[in-house]
């Protein structure tokens, strides 16, 4: 239904720096500058999470005070939230797909669904943190606490930033024109989102599933 597609209305302004300007310059690699830099950035992020995960793996059994991982982890709950995050990767794929087909309606829709699932995941994490805190595991309680909250907190912040990015893309698609290649913007956010998901799969496996 074309009538519910994005209404590119009003005003003379095409300037939304962050979302525009993929000048179709030919590049030496054929990848656009933006996409290449996103890949590189994600490569760098791998090392960031690598460092945090190593820290956690070293410290997960160390809790002179407070509860240990085997006492507080709620594996069924985290399995559900992991599943929800994985579903959001699926919906993200659908969003990118729609964007490539220039189906603005469904692009917005799938982006929104992805954001909602992401928010649900973070909501689950906030719940988890709150209940852990009540059960006696604070950020400063023990090495396990510090490294657990730091690792999963960094991941949660990444997801939250992803949600904000998704929503902004939706808003802009609704309210403003995105100049340049719309599909690429969605694809860039998608790359980021998949990366965050993959990191979670690793965290879920190493932190929750493999007993210390």
């Amino acid at each position: 239904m074309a009538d519910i597609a994005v209404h590119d209305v009003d005003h003379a302004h095409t300037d939304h720096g962050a979302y525009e300007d993929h000048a179709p310059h030919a590049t030496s690699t054929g990848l656009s500058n933006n996409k290449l830099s996103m890949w590189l950035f994600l490569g760098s992020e791998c090392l960031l999470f690598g460092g945090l995960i190593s820290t956690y793996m070293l410290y997960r059994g160390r809790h002179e005070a407070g509860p240990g991982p085997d006492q507080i982890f709620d594996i069924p709950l985290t399995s559900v939230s992991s599943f929800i995050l994985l579903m959001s990767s699926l919906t993200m794929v659908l969003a990118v797909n729609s964007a490539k087909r220039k189906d603005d309606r469904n692009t917005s829709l799938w982006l929104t669904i992805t954001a909602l699932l992401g928010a649900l995941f973070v909501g689950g994490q906030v719940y988890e943190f709150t209940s852990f805190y009540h059960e006696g595991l604070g950020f400063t309680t023990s090495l396990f606490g510090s490294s657990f909250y730091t690792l999963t907190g960094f991941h949660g912040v990444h997801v939250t930033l992803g949600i904000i990015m998704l929503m902004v893309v939706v808003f802009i698609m609704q309210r403003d024109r995105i100049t340049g290649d719309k599909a690429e913007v969605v694809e860039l956010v998608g790359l980021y989102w998949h990366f965050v998901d993959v990191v979670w799969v690793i965290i879920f496996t190493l932190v929750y599933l493999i007993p210390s």
Partner: protein
Amino acid sequence: MAIIERPAAVPATVDAVAAPEVVTPTQALGAFRRPVSSTGWKSWLFTVDHKKLGIMYGAVSLFFFLVGGIEALLIRLQLAAPDNTVLSADQYNQMFTMHATTMVFLFVMPMAAAFANYFLPLQIGARDVAFPRINALGFWLFLFGGLFLNSSWLLGGAADGGWFMYSPNSSALFSPSHGIDFWVLGLQITGIASLIGALNLIVTVLNMRAPGMKLMQMPVFTWMVLVVQFLLLFAMPVITVALFLLSFQRNFGATFFDVNQGADPLLWQHLFWIFGHPEVYIIILPSFGIISEVLPTFARKPLFGYKFVVFSGAAIGFVGWGVWAHHMFASGLGPVSVAVFSVATMLIAIPTGVKIVNWTLTLWGGKLWFTTAMLFAIGVIVLFTIGGVSGVTHAVAPSDTQQTDTYHIVAHFHYVIVGGAVMGLFAGFYFWWPKMFGKMLNERLGKWNFWLMFFGVNLTFGPMHILGLQGQPRRMVVWPEKLTGDGFFDMHFWNQIASVGSFVIGLGVLIFVINIFWTWKKAPIAPLDPWDARTLEWITASPPKEHNFDRIPTVHALDEFFHRKYEEVDTADGPRLVKVKSAEEILAEEESHADAHIHLPSPSYWPIVLAAALPIIAYGVIYNLMLSVVGTAVLLLAVFGWCLEPSVADDSDYDPPAGGDSTKELATLG
């Protein structure tokens, strides 16, 4: 009250009839008018031009070089005599911490970034980097991060834990001043600069090469910078994690390095050196790249074994990730790890050796022209070889347990860093100065500069080999009279020689500074191609025009510029190289085929504003989180402005507004 409703003045250029209907947008937006001037101080403050940023990187790094140098001289003054009292123990600890931090993070790394920024686009035939505004942001982050770091001197003392900042000595219990907080946050800020710089340059090299330039036709300097950027890309996040852990511990009560909670202090060492060892190659490879440009130019023949040099550079970058624990041979890793890392460390000597061999063979059979740049480059070969072979003695782990943390190590890495990296950067100064400023640095002063530095380096760091082997440990504010040994050539003697040597180096650097001023004020305009150079950057005007190339060159060969100048001619005695065109002729040809519409990115306020927000946030973390809130507001404002800004200025932003066809825009996200 009818105060604020006074209408804007009528713009002079607007058509008299149409104008009143619609006031042009940027006038309405007032402050959001983009800066556009290409002269004056504003053109520097808001520039996104890689050449201007390169020069500013260079100037600021040079300033920090002098700061770090003064710290070094104070250290050597303190150590000139046994049980000396020039500095107190506390001051001394701050001094050597900040000397290393300044030299590594605020001089060598950004100075390499200066050359990379300036010459990388020129060497690959691009008009700018991929993300010019991000490039500007990187520079300002570096500057503000460096100033933030050094502001600790005035705010209760600088960091005093050594540049390696081993825990738990870096915790608030053992270092209660804010020095380490400044150090952590300052390095986070400069770290962001390095990271985004790396992204930018990698994309630039991979995506923006001139038509025809294959990867294996890139100048070696570009190659080495590319390897360095990959190292940065993967090393910076690791130190970022380590710094986060430390600042969470110091500022928010986390327990990462609290031994009473069962923490393992070796965690910090691993994280630090996983970053720290690639960092060594981050420091040295740009210099390798520079001398790989200088040596062929002044030997009048191509680099011997280009492919081997490139691959060995990449191999160093790769193997460099597997040797970090050789900094920890005495840390108690256990024999298996020690043996593995010991062998891996020896392995990395092989590609390094390949480079030395290739440089030497580049000289072989050449027609050597001993300019100052060439002398510095040869100085690198000599000094780096000495530093390299003493490195092999540390790779032998049991031997290292005797040498580590003594002056023998200090000698080793100063031969590598001063002899290898810094001398290479100086070769770059003398080689590229005419390209950057259109004037040659004085060669006579240059020779003085070289010999004083070369002599000084050997005089300062040579004796440290002995001091270390005689058992003088590092990082000691005093060394005692009773351990000096017997005879004339005791520790006392060698320490004095080293101190004298440091002032000789200082004199050499002073002459360099004088040379800069002399060149600035007095030197005549340099010829277009003073060195009969080989690579693409010399195809441009000196200094290069704002848009670098009038037309984007098409590349056919390694050393493209040389092959445009020279052609092989058959003579009776066999083939001979004959100069067929001068640089001036080539430049004139390029100018006559200039591209019609050249789009350049416009200057922007936002990089500097965004960069300024981070130190504010950092001060807030140390003193009061409310300040961080203010900083975050500034940050948001800057991001906001950044997004608001089209990557190219509206015509009306020009003052007076430019015509429609003027040169602007290189459309990018950054």
